[in-house]
Structures are given as structure tokens and as C-alpha cells.
């Protein structure tokens, strides 16, 4: 009853060719087939944002995609955010501002914010609030996450708000 398909894709700069069940979600593929368990599943129906990854430059919910839909795609997950031991400015700012407690939603926020800051390198607080409104955090109350993204923005984006 299962149908499998060959999948080629690049994740965090590494190319993979894998035989996958066509009904397997992208999130399950990343977690179970590639052992990239930093991508988390909070609702499995596309609301909480914990499973957010970047596909071809765009933040997507990996629980709502099938792995086979990522054929030929370039993906970035939280595991690819740091440059070796050098934390990404967003990661450093999340720690500095205590923007996480249990850490379960954090990879999703980091990936959402990473894609957002590429679109809008110098956002104001309201824009940040809006940008992360599709990610749910139960611990922090969001405020420190907004502060962290604002703190990281100059380092990520480089330009000041006009």
C-alpha cells in the first residue's frame, strides 16, 4: 500500500538522494530520515509554526508539505543557522534576551525571523510582532523574542531603518 519515490534535495548545503514514502511529511523526513531533529512538531496542522524551515528562501511549515514536494529544493533548518561554533546573530540575541524557556518553539521562531530579516532588514517592533504572529510560544509571552529579533536585526541585515 505504500508508494515510494526518489527525492533529491539540498539541506543546509548538503545534497541528499533518498527513497521516501510519498505520504511522508517534510517535517518527518527531516527529523526521521535525515536526523535533523531541531525541527519540531507542535501541532502537525500548520498553526503553531514550530516546524518552520526555509525552502528556496521562503519560510514554510514543514508539517504541511510532503517531502516529495521538496524535490530539487534547497532547505535550511535550524541546524544550519550557526556558522560552525559561531552562533548566528539571532541565536546569540535569543540567548541574550532570554527569548526562550523550554526551547521547543525556538527553532521555528529562529527560522521565521531569519527569513523575515532578509525581507525586512531593519524592522520596527510592530513589524516584528506581525512577522512572528504565526508562531506560538507558550513560555515567554513573546516580548523577549521581539526584543531579540530587534537586537539581531542590525547584525543580520546591516542597514539602518530609514
Amino acid at each position, binding site marked *: 500500500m505504500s508508494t515510494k519515490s526518489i527525492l533529491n534535495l539540498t539541506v543546509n548545503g548538503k545534497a541528499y538522494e533518498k527513497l521516501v514514502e510519498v505520504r511522508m511529511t517534510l517535517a518527518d523526513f527531516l527529523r526521521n530520515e535525515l536526523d535533523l531533529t531541531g525541527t519540531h512538531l507542535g*501541532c502537525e496542522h500548520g498553526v503553531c509554526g514550530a516546524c518552520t524551515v526555509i525552502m528556496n528562501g521562503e519560510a514554510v511549515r514543514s508539517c504541511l508539505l510532503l517531502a516529495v514536494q521538496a524535490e530539487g529544493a534547497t532547505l535550511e533548518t*535550524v541546524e544550519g543557522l550557526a556558522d560552525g561554533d559561531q552562533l548566528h546573530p539571532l541565536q546569540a540575541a535569543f540567548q541574550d534576551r532570554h527569548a526562550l*524557556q523550554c*526551547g521547543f518553539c*525556538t527553532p521555528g521562531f529562529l527560522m521565521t525571523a531569519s527569513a523575515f530579516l532578509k525581507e525586512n532588514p531593519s524592522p520596527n517592533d510592530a513589524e516584528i*510582532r506581525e512577522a512572528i504572529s504565526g508562531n506560538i510560544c507558550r513560555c515567554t509571552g513573546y516580548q523577549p523574542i521581539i526584543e531579540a529579533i530587534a537586537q539581531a536585526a542590525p547584525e543580520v541585515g546591516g542597514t539602518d531603518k530609514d
Partner: protein
Amino acid sequence: MAESYIGAPIRRREDVRFITGAGTYVDDIKLPHMVHAAILRSPHAHARILNIDTKRAEALPGVVSVFTLKDIGELDATVPIRMYKIPGLDKYLQPSLARDVVRYVGEPVAVAVAESRYLAEDALDAIDVDYEVLQEVMDVREALEDKVLVHEDNGTNLAGVHHVNIGDADKAFEEADYTRREEFRVHRFTGNPMETRGILAHFDRGKGELRVYGATKLPHLNRQTIAAFLQLPEHKCHFEENDVGGGFGIRGELYPEDFLIPFATVRLGVPVKWIEDRREHLLAANHSRQVTCELEIAARKDGTLLAVRAQIFGDMGAYVRTHGGLVPCSTAALLTGPYRIPNYEARIHCIMTNKTGMGTLRAPGRVESCFYRERMLDMMARDLDLDPVELRRKNLVKPEEIPYEIGFTRPSKHPTILDSGDYPSALRQALERFDYDEMLGRQGLREDGRYHGVGLSYFVKNTGGLEPYEGARMVVGEGGGVTVFLSIAQLGQGHETAMAQICADALGVPMDAISVFHGNTDLSPFGWGTFASRGTVMAGNAVHITALQLKDKILAAAARHLDADAASLSLEDGNIVQPGTEAPALPLGELVAHMRESIIPEQGVPELEATAYYNSDNITHTYGVHLAQVAVDPETGMLEVLKYLVVEDVGRMVNPLMVHGQTVGAAVQGIGGVVLEELVYGEGGQLLTTTFLDYLLPTSTDVPPIDDLVLEEAPSPYNPLGVKGAGEGGIVGTAGALGNAVSNALGIEVKDLPLSPDRIRAWLRARNDGSSTPPL
């Protein structure tokens, strides 16, 4: 060296693994030959099981096993009551799989195990169950009529009653100038940690040992229970917590699945993993909060409170779970709050309905009672034409009356005693910081077309607790590194950092030299758990006293090595020094190197390690004020929280960064619960809110920035560190403050929750129909 780590906003050491995706939550663990379980759940709120046929499911490819109650046989286990064992409740326990009758939508009926989670879920569709649907009962008032019985054999839905009686409330009511009676309701909602429940269990048949990953909150208690169920020796059961995606009361309690998955691995001999999905979580994990209260208040004309009487009705759902009568009983426990109310009577009713069982949610019962009391005080202030702030100030327990014994408000041999505090001071600071008088001036219909209102609530919250202990073991190793083993678990708070801070100060070593391990029953034979804001109070003090004992041992060993008097030595910043002398400092690591061969000397007592447990017979109480400013759109009924302040005195902060994080996070969680979240049951007892599209959690655009002021004016006299727990103060007052703010904005009296647009619109319609002018 002066204490330097406690009180410093040190960045969490836990964070690095979480921000790099290197955390290890239970679903991140894979074991060889691991198989996956899925649980078949009842689609009916109340039905008799006529037949279960698993043959079709067992024949599916990749299916390893399907089991039902009859396969469990004599091992069959029920979820035990661990707290608040009100007499009678033990007749309403939940079996691991439904026994003949299902009593709520979501009740486990059968388990399928397969090579993948996908295949296990496929198998559920092929299990054939014949049900005879029965009439359900969903409302506590109806349930009290006993026309439909949730547990037929018991003959009643009133599972248990507890009575609190302090002073002579009836007499006080007879003599009072003023009385008022109101009925208040809090709706049903739940904690929803971002990580759902999950268990990975592996029974090693060769060793006869069970290892369970994903144990959280109460690893030792759950081990004790599961070992007994499975008839395994406790010491051969190892419970590991791993990283945990939030707790909030719900996660880590013992549920049917906590037995079913270990049972499956014992039966099959291979590791079995079960990861709950969100729909299951909303259907099957504990619900909370749904308590109704008929509250009466008695006072003199001048506002002096004389008495409170309450009839409290807890909607326990279909089974009484681990918390027993905790939620409704805790509603009674602090119903009188920070006020001097000499006469108090409460009757608490635990009532069964065809809903998911009730358990705790951050500040269980305390959020509810604060709402009832603080709403009633605002109503009373209006009735007596008194200023609501002055009314509260007049009745607050005064600093010189503390410790203030309220009396026996719980089913416990210990009375409730407010241990320390300056309640008027916290109120004064809250009003100043919020700019209360200025905010009051902005109440009413404003130029934005919305009604603005301000609301205040004052809370006290017990933290720590009476559960007997937490422990710590500390070992000095190579290079002077100190390893701390905790009995307590972590649900995302930051124990690894906070406990290292406490240890560093007490011991006199740099924090970087300290490693903290926790959440594994092998690290410590005994332990309780992470709930009731008790982590810092119980485990923090355990770390403190263990470190002091270890320091004495280190100094004794150093004294021998240096041929000095131990009393002349001290341990500072990782060095043994002799203050007032020219003697060179001896680094702790060098002492260890010298002692390597003789760390366990002739008498066999290890010199460089210590174990101690902290016990407590007393509860610490935090206290504080919530203030909210809201705006309500009369057209849409939409409520916006414009400004929110939490003031809480926690006695002493170990790590201000984390305390503020707890406070702000709790406040947002509280606002979400009061405004957005609701577990809604529809026709046939079906739960309608089984996704995050239906069950709305607060997001970044739903909440304002939260202001918080954490005070340290009243360290607890009950523990060496003077700490109180900081996990719940941010949530306790949310329903009270928001209920009062909306009432003040609209000129209505909010008596039930949530403050959702449809309900606000209904209240406005009723107000407009009933009178041309609002009652304000």
C-alpha cells in the same frame, strides 16, 4: 567573597543546545528496533463497548501488535489519586483502557503498535468497535440531578465533598450591615505545552530492566507507580526526562498512556514510542479551571470584611485523575486572599461529567478564586459607594499581623499561614507604577469608539509546598569541577543555570566549575517533582544546604593537607585560602589532585561529596497586584488589552532574567486563557476545539507588552535562602484584573469567562435591553 551569583541576571546555559537545534526532546530519541504506538480513542462521550475486533488491524502490513483491555489482563492499572484524596473520589478512577463503558470523547480503547507511526495510525482505522451510545451529561448542575450517571455503579455523580469552616460565618452574615451573593463561573481550558506528551519505553528482557524516556515533572513518582503496575522492582526501572517542551501542570502527570507504552514494551521486548498529536492532547490530556462558585460576602457599611461563604463546584470530567480534588479544593484554599476575613465557610463539590478528566494548570484554583473574590470586591465597592482601592487597602492583612494564620483551608493537617509580606507596600507601588489615577481618568467611551476600563486584582499564591523534600548530591572531581545531581525535573525553566548559581555562592566556587544534572531517577533514589512553583524553594534550598555540607568536608580535607585549622580556612572562588595570613591560595583542583589516591579515606566515608535533602513543613506565599487597562469595541465585542502590569514579591530572586521571564510569560498565558482559550463541547458531548484553529492560543499580536515589577521586600522566613516560587504570580491575577477592567469599561458585572467577543456582545445587548443607563 560576597555572594555574587544569586541575584545576577545570568544567561541560561541551557540555551545553546536549544537555539542550535541540539536539544533532545523525547521524540528526538531513536533506539534500534524501535516500533511506534497509536491509541484508539472513544468517539463517544458515553457509550457501552459491545465488541472490539482487532483482526483486520492485526493483518495489516507493518503492524506488530494490537492490544485491548483483555490482553492486559491482571496487570490492569488505574490512574492513582496522589493528592487531595477527598473521601469517595477513589470510586471514579480511570482504567488504562476503557472497561466496558467509555465516558468521554478521547478515552483510550485499544493500542496499535506498528513499524512506523503512519502504519500504527492506519491500523487504528481497521479496529472495529461496536458501541451502544448512552446519554451523556455535560453540565455540573445537570450532573447533580443524577438523572444520567457517569459511573452507573456508584449511583451518583457527586464524587466527593470537602468542607472548610473557619470562625462562624453564619453568625457573621446575620450580624452584617451588608451582604451580597453572586454566582461566578470559570470556563474549561488547558495548558497546551508546545511539546505534546510522548513516551519512549524500552524493556531489556536480558537485564529485566525498563527504561522510560519522556518522563517529566514527577519521574520518581511515575516510576514508583509504573513499577508497581508492571510488577517490576523499582530499582530496575529507569525514568529519564530529557528536554521538555513546557509543562504548565498538565505534562508529566501519570496518564493511561504512561502505563500502556511501558506495558507494550514489556509485552513486545522492543522499544515502543508514542508521540501524542495535538488533537489527542486536547482530547485526552488533563483539562482544567472549570469551577463554578456561589459566593457570598458579608461586611460592615464601612467596608470591613466580616465573612465569606462559598459553594464550589468542580467539573471533574469523567474520571478523577492524579490530582484528586485539587482544583476545586485549591479554589477554596486561598479564596480569602490577602484580606483579613475572620469567618470563612466553603463547601467543595467534586462532580463527574462526560468530559476529559481535570488536572492542574498553572496556579490551579488560585486563578479562579482570585477572579471570584476580586470581582465581588469591586461589586461591593460600588454597592457601598467605596473606592475599590481603599476597600482593599482597608482589609489587607497588615505587615504586623504576619505571619497570619487563615486556618485550615485545605484537606491537610497544616493550616494556611501567610508567612511574610508587606501587602500595602506592593499595592502602593503597583498603583504608582501603573499610573493608576491617570489611567482611571481615561475610563469610558473614548475617541477611538471603544469603551476603556481599568481593573485591579490582588493575589496571594502558595509556592513551594508541603510535599516532603527534594534532594541534591554534589561531588568534587578532577580539576575542582563540581557535579550537582538533582532529584527534581525541569520543564523548561532553567534549573541548570539557577541551581549552579545557588551552588556557586554556597560553596565558593566559580559557576563555570559546576555542572548540573537532573531528571533521571538513577541520579537520585528519591524525589518529588516540578509543580506549585516549588523548584527553587525545594531544590534550590537542597542545593544550598548540600553545598554548605560539602564545603565543610572540603575545608576539613584541606586542613589536613595544609596542616592547618579548618576553622581558619575558607573556600573562595574555587581556592582554599587562609584569610589574614600570607599563605598562598590552594586551588580546589590541586587539593583534588593531591587527594586522588585517598578521596575515600580509611574510614570509608567519601570526603569530597555530599548528599542532602531539604524538607519543609511550611508553605511560602508570594503576593502582588495585577493591573489591566482594556478597550472594548462595542460593535464587534473585541477586547484589546492596552496595558498590563504584574507586581509580585518573590522574597528573593535567584536569577532576575528568569524571574521576569516567568512573570511575563505567565501573564500572557493568563490573558490568553481569559480572553481566547476555551474547550468547547457540542452536541453529543463532542469536543469541538481539537485544533489550534479552534482552540485559540495567544500570539504576538494578541497581547500587549507586559510590564512587571518584582519585589524582594519579604524573603520567606521558612527556608535558608528566603526564596519563594516565581512561576505562577504572573498568571494568578489575570482573570480578576481583566474581569474588573471589562466590567468597568462597559458598566456591567462580569461573572463568567472567557471574555470572548460573542459573550461581550451578549452582555452589551443585555445591558442595553435591561436599562438605558449602565449601572456604573
